[in-house]
């Protein structure tokens, strides 16, 4: 079988390690789409690799061989060392548990979103009376269009031009269905917890995407930067989470600086290419490893 089967797992690790760099440097629109797709591909491929690492061992298991009438011993040393198989089995168990928890949480969240729509049907904008500085999108469902939820505290903190930035930013989230991107990368991280760092990276890129759309809509990146700064300062500092990926800890500043700099070039493809390559390599090697496993299967049955 060789080491081909381990490549999807390495790809997942590489993608997770490279996610912050991709978040910082990739053009937001292309970067988020590519990162979500690569994460999903890498997650599936890595899980297939884990199944193969366990399955290769199970096929050779003596009771199974007897039942199926196979020769009791394969030729030569086993292609997958026992510790590796056990580790892979443990990995699959983790995936099953984490996946189940995430699935339940995700279903509950979807129910909550549908329920909230019932209280938000007066128009695109729903204002909540609160001194907090809040703006959120309520993504569209089958029966309701997307809505923008804003506290009156937020509206008072911004001037008319900045309010236009806010609305344009939220509209971008709704129009491009960023909730779907977020849900997909969340599923990828459930399928393979090694990929958790890609979630924060995608979140950041989605905000950058909406920032750039808002800047286009109002015609000024400076104004957009100012609106972000104004809203953030009005919100005030909050207690830092115990752990945050380093780039996320300064994300408002990064977004403001990105807007004060010239618009991101449609070039800068290196990071994206790497992510795309990773996803493709992961998928290809999963297929190759599965082919290897089939070959091994035949060998054990004596079909040579």
């Amino acid at each position, binding site marked *: 079988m060789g080491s081909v089967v381990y490549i999807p797992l390495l790809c997942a690790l590489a993608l997770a390690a490279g996610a912050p760099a991709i978040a910082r440097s990739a053009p937001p629109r292309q970067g988020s789409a590519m990162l979500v797709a690569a994460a999903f591909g890498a997650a599936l491929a890595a899980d297939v690799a884990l199944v193969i690492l366990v399955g290769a061992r199970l096929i050779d298991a003596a009771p199974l061989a007897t039942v199926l009438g196979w020769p009791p011993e394969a030729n030569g040393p086993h292609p997958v060392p026992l510790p590796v198989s056990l580790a892979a089995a443990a990995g699959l168990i983790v995936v099953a548990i984490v996946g189940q928890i995430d699935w339940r949480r995700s279903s509950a*969240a979807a129910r*909550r*979103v549908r329920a*909230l729509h019932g*209280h*938000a049907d*007066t*128009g*695109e*904008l*729903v*204002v*909540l*009376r*609160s001194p*907090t500085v*809040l703006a*959120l*999108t309520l*993504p569209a469902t089958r029966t309701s269009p997307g809505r*923008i939820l*804003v506290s*009156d505290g937020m*509206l008072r903190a911004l001037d*008319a031009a900045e*309010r*236009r930035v806010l*609305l*344009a930013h*939220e*509209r971008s989230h709704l129009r491009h269905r960023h*909730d779907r991107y*977020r849900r997909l990368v969340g599923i990828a991280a459930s399928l393979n917890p090694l990929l958790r760092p890609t979630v924060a990276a995608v979140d950041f890129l*989605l*905000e950058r995407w*909406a920032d750039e759309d808002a800047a*286009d*809509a*109002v*015609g*000024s*990146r*400076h*104004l957009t930067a*100012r609106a*972000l*700064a104004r*809203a*953030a*300062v009005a*919100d*005030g*500092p*909050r207690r830092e989470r115990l752990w*945050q990926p380093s780039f*996320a*800890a300064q994300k*408002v*500043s990064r977004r*403001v600086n990105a807007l004060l700099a010239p618009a991101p070039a449609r070039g800068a493809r290196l990071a994206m290419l790497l992510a795309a390559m990773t996803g493709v390599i992961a998928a290809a090697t999963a297929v190759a490893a599965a082919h290897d496993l089939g070959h091994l299967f035949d060998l054990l049955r004596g079909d040579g």
Partner: protein
Amino acid sequence: MRVVMNDGPRREAGELESEVLAALWAAGRPLTPGEVREELGGLLAYTTVMTTLSRLHAKDVVDRRRSGRGFAYSPNVREAEVAARHFRSLLDRGHDRDEVLQGFVSGLSADEERVLRALLDNGAEVDE
């Protein structure tokens, strides 16, 4: 995708409603259609603002009362208080929001606050 220009007439009706409603909330006092129009930069037609305010009033999202020969409009605060109760969990700062509810800004650190305040005080001019 068509870029929405800065001038009023290109905006859709629903978007106009949002802008006008937001302006009423930000003002903190009842506004006449003329004052709303001014607050929004004076680029919208007066009739457009009037129509938008009427639509909002019909939806019971804004109140109005007589002012001179016309009306002055203010947001329906009761409705917003009811809404706040329904969305209470989202307003709680400590609460973990559902992953698909994207927002605007969050998670400012103390260092960042200083830097951003300085940026605002020095006036990042809108000069593009």
